[in-house]
């Protein structure tokens, strides 16, 4: 076989592999849009469900997911970034920090339903938050902590060493060095972790199943101690638990969930690019 021919075959195979990877994404999007777009209306987005969820809107589920995601991020980002700063800037490489790093990697591999049970045990029962937005957001927050910590660590480690050296040589304390010479430059990477966490928190069903999600609750939550509907669980309910929900309502709900995640990501990406731009001033 000539070298030119083998090269062609290799490139063709690589292209095919790429196609196979992209295809499911395109197909999923196409099907959801095709089957769900007809359900999207003002009423669908901004009113309460009616007739046992087979008609009306999904506003409580949209808002519920929004609250949960924002709560999870509000909890996990400061905590995760603080832990990452400690691991990268302070602890050095000792047995304890290696153990913590190992624990974080393992935490990322824990099935989400286990997080749900954990949240039920800790937040709902032990702390007596009950099934509430607070319990759900904290559970989701703990679930996305590994992602936040890992990406924040990578971001901190990629800040050039000499930023720290120079800052210290100018008589800055270690904390001033971190605060002024390291963290600002790690911010885009930290936001990337936040974006990944956002998407995961928005889509998971299992962690909210026991901690917050309401089967059918056609009113808006009044405080963080209220239960709420949420999009992923609502989707599960109308797809498997409630007979007679029209197909376009189910796909429409999926479409809204996708759009919401996309929108949140977009906002975070815009934020990140603004920080990147400012870095170059």
């Amino acid at each position, binding site marked *: 076989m000539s070298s030119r021919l083998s090269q062609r075959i290799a490139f063709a195979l690589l292209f095919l592999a790429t196609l196979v990877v992209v295809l499911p994404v395109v197909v999923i999007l196409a099907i959801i849009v095709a089957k769900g777009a007809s359900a999207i209306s003002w009423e669908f987005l901004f009113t309460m469900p009616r007739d046992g969820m087979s008609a009306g809107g999904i506003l409580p589920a949209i808002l519920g997911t929004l609250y949960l995601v924002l709560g999870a991020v509000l909890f996990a980002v400061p905590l995760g970034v603080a832990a990452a700063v400690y691991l990268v800037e302070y602890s*050095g490489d000792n047995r304890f920090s290696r153990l913590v790093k190992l624990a974080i990697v393992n935490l990322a591999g824990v099935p989400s339903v286990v997080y749900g049970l954990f949240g039920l045990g800790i937040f709902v029962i032990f702390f007596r938050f009950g099934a509430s937005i607070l319990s759900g957001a904290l559970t989701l927050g703990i679930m996305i902590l590994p992602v936040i910590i890992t990406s924040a660590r990578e971001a901190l480690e990629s800040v050039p060493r*000499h*930023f720290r*050296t*120079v*800052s*210290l*040589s*100018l*008589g*800055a*304390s270690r904390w*001033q060095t971190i605060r*002024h*010479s390291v963290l600002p*430059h790690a911010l885009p990477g930290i936001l990337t972790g936040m974006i990944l966490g956002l998407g995961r928190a928005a889509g998971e069903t299992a962690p909210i199943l026991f901690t917050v999600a309401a089967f059918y609750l056609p009113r808006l939550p009044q405080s963080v101690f209220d239960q709420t509907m949420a999009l992923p669980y609502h989707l599960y309910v109308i797809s498997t638990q409630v007979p007679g929900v029209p197909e376009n309502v189910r796909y429409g709900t999926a479409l809204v969930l996708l759009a919401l995640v996309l929108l949140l990501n977009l906002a975070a990406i815009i934020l990140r690019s603004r920080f990147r731009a400012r*870095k*170059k*001033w």
Partner: protein
Amino acid sequence: MSMGDYCIETRGLDLFYGDFQALTAVDLQVPARQVTALIGPSGCGKSTLLRVFNRMNDLIDGVRVAGTVRIDNEDIYAPGTDLLRLREKVGMVFQRPNPFPLSVYGNIAFGLAVHRLAGRREYGMVVEQALRDVLLWDDLKDRLHQSALSLSLEQQQRLCIARVLPLKPQVLLMDEPCSALDPIATLHIEDLMRKLKRDYTIVIVTHNMQQAARASDRAGFMYLGKLIEFDETASIFTHPRQELTENYISGRFG
């Protein structure tokens, strides 16, 4: 020269990285407001010695120091030494120009903000003075808010020198400050050193013997962690007393 004129004085200075002894029994007396050059082949310990003076070696795990180091008659390795104040007093310029990815202004204001040396309203004046001192003001006065990374390498290195001046240090440590610069820029930085030594004690590590000969008043030759010879630069280069020194400066090794 009386004792009081020495700015930096080491006695019996040993430094270990773990088990490796990087400096052995260094006795050095650096006169105030002169340029003192440390020369010697790679790995001879000259950069290590330089980093003793602002204790940047402390950042490396397993560093141990014995002997005494006095700067301005203060033992800088005494227990309870305030490292932040020491580094305010002993500024450092590194081998590669390494401004922060901030504006020109932001780079110089950094030290002021960290040490709360001036009110915000005085920053402008201090920044201007620092830039004048390194002869950058005329070039940069309209570009204060541009990124420091957009400057030429020479300008960046001048900026790095300007960055330490607002702290009013007594000593400027320069670790091969010209090795990333072209010959013309190198001469400019040397001119600047001659100007700055009126106000600052300068210790420079250099690989470039012509540079040491041109720019320094005193020179020390180091080899394998020892200070072999330390004298007026003119004597070191015209009639060195040690054979090792002569071999090195005549280019027979190193």
